[in-house]
């Protein structure tokens, strides 16, 4: 399969022919995908096609066997998930993984990591990292974080300002996601649809450039799905995020995605606009199976 990606020069997330092998099983083969600013792309495929594996490779849960994952111009192979998150990639989970005992606002606040440590501003650390000075960047980051604990112990004015700032950001995000009235409630007590939205709010709090949504509409009713579609579009338009969506619901995917990648058995079988993909015989085959007379023909 020649990967017919729509790789643009300004792609923020760029996966270059990633292969993921678990022993003898090839879960993902030569997977390529690029998401740029303002893109809204979909990743579909039948059960077991390797969609979630692809997500896990992109977010650093697995290191790809071969191939590269590049975020914002930096090669991310072998980086830990939290480093990839800091680089600008945030995700949600297929089976909701909220911090159940914490309040909704605290869930979002966990994502709101402070932008600056007092001695080493994060921008400077990122700059170092881009220059390829990873070890030094890591050292600065670690020591900066240790020093930051002291500010928390002493309640320095700067620390209090930052906390107030985080509080405000978290409240704004909850408002955007329509959860402001649930701020003080424990995450586990929220209804299912709101838990899904809270997970998106938490991901947004990390300040991503690309948002990966793993089946955001699973278990939602038609009404909730429509609201979610509108919301995802709004996020893209207002924040200029690149969004990559895994979804089973064809209506949702076809309705909002501008570009769809179809996986089957770990292989990319089609890439294109919803209309192209819908007509692609391979896709129809993967989803509906091949009719017997076609086989004979």
């Amino acid at each position, binding site marked *: 399969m020649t990967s017919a990606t729509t790789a643009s020069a300004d792609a923020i997330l760029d996966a270059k022919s990633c292969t993921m092998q678990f022993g003898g099983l090839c879960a993902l083969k030569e997977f390529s995908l690029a998401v740029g600013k303002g893109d809204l792309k979909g990743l579909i495929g039948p059960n077991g096609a390797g969609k979630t594996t692809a997500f896990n490779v992109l977010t650093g849960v697995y290191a790809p066997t071969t191939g590269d994952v590049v975020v914002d111009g930096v090669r991310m192979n072998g980086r830990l998930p939290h480093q990839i998150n800091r680089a600008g990639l945030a995700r949600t989970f297929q089976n909701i993984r909220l*911090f159940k005992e914490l309040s909704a606002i605290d869930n979002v606040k966990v994502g709101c990591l402070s932008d600056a440590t007092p001695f080493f501003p994060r921008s400077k650390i990122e700059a170092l990292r881009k220059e390829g000075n990873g070890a030094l960047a890591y050292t600065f980051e670690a020591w900066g974080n240790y020093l930051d604990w002291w500010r928390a112990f002493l309640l320095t004015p700067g620390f209090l300002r*930052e906390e107030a700032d985080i509080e405000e950001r978290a409240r704004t995000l909850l408002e955007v996601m329509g959860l402001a009235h649930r701020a003080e409630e424990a995450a586990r007590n929220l209804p299912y649809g709101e838990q899904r939205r809270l997970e998106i709010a938490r991901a947004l709090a990390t300040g991503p450039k690309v948002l990966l949504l793993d089946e955001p509409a699973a278990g939602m009713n038609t009404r909730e799905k429509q609201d979610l579609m509108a919301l995802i579009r709004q996020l893209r338009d207002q924040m200029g995020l690149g969004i990559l969506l895994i979804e089973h619901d064809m209506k949702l995917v076809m309705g909002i995605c501008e570009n769809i990648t179809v996986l089957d058995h770990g292989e990319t079988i089609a890439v294109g606009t919803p209309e192209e993909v819908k007509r692609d015989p391979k896709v129809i085959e993967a989803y509906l199976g091949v009719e017997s007379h076609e086989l004979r023909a």
Partner: protein
Amino acid sequence: MTPVTTSPVARVLQRVPVPLRGVFPFLVAIPLLACVHFATSGAPFFVILSLGVGVNVILAVSLNIVNGMTGQFSIGHAGFMAVGAYTAGLTSTILSEYGLSFLPGAVSDQVMFTLSLAVGGAVAAAFGFLVGLPSLRLKGDYLAIVTLGFGEIIRVIVQNTDVFGRALGLRGVPQWTSMFSCWFIVFLTIVVARRIAASTHGRSLLAIREDEVAAEAMGVNTTAYKVRSFVVAAFFAGLAGGVFAHYQSIVNPGSFTFVKSMEIVVIIVAGGLGSTTGAVVAAVFLTLLPEALRSIFLGLGVSSETAQLVDQARMPIYGILLVLIMLLRPQGLFGTRELWDLALFKPKGPEHFPPRPREGGAL
């Protein structure tokens, strides 16, 4: 019921000017502690009892940072306490031979006491780092076994080292711990624990407890945070050890057995994992329990030998108590809540629950 709430102290703090918020609790606590110190100077039995309680409170509150907030199960806290006790004890026995001649004797003692406590805490924290870095990659039972092993290793090492007096222990550690210094450190530990809980860092720790994979995906460096929580807990365990060494005057390995570690774990489980005030209440209650039992039995006219037996039956009583608590309240006395979350202290009526900004931080 909100899971993490503003403490009454935080509400008071909101009215304090920002630059003073950090020190304000200490400005209140120091004169209060001084009053208590002088008021109790005529009651040595009470002082000794409260020093024991204080040490256990420090240990429980600090262990709660690891076991309660971060959700890692460490059962070797007595090991860090031993490191702190021996290092601080040794430092002060050496220092006490010199003395600072330009200061009055008592002041010079306190300076050296502070110094040796700091050394004890720092060495314990360094041990926390060394033990935590490799072992915090383990989870659950495996981590418990490693920490348990660490506690035992420390005990066996001091038992066989001449500098530490082998099985007899360190003798002649100056008795510098006072009501004031002990409870000041207790206060410090509680303030630090609460401030961690209410900060970005505390939220990251709680996130690790709730879901490690999700925390990692949200940009929390889980390994680093776990190690840091371990280091902070070890530091305060070291301070507790130092305080302990300076009122017992004799430090022997028998004080830092597995039983001591378990005692602290029992306290925080009983108080509710993740609740700082729960740890304090449980530590006070469970430390005083054997004493109270003994005085009650003596008061009932039982002979002192029988009362002694009751004292020795402390561990079985702990066991029964723990089983009872686990049956009746599996989440501990307070769960993850704090004292002020209990219905008893809640203002009544919905109009008392406006959306409240929490910029003050706890305590």
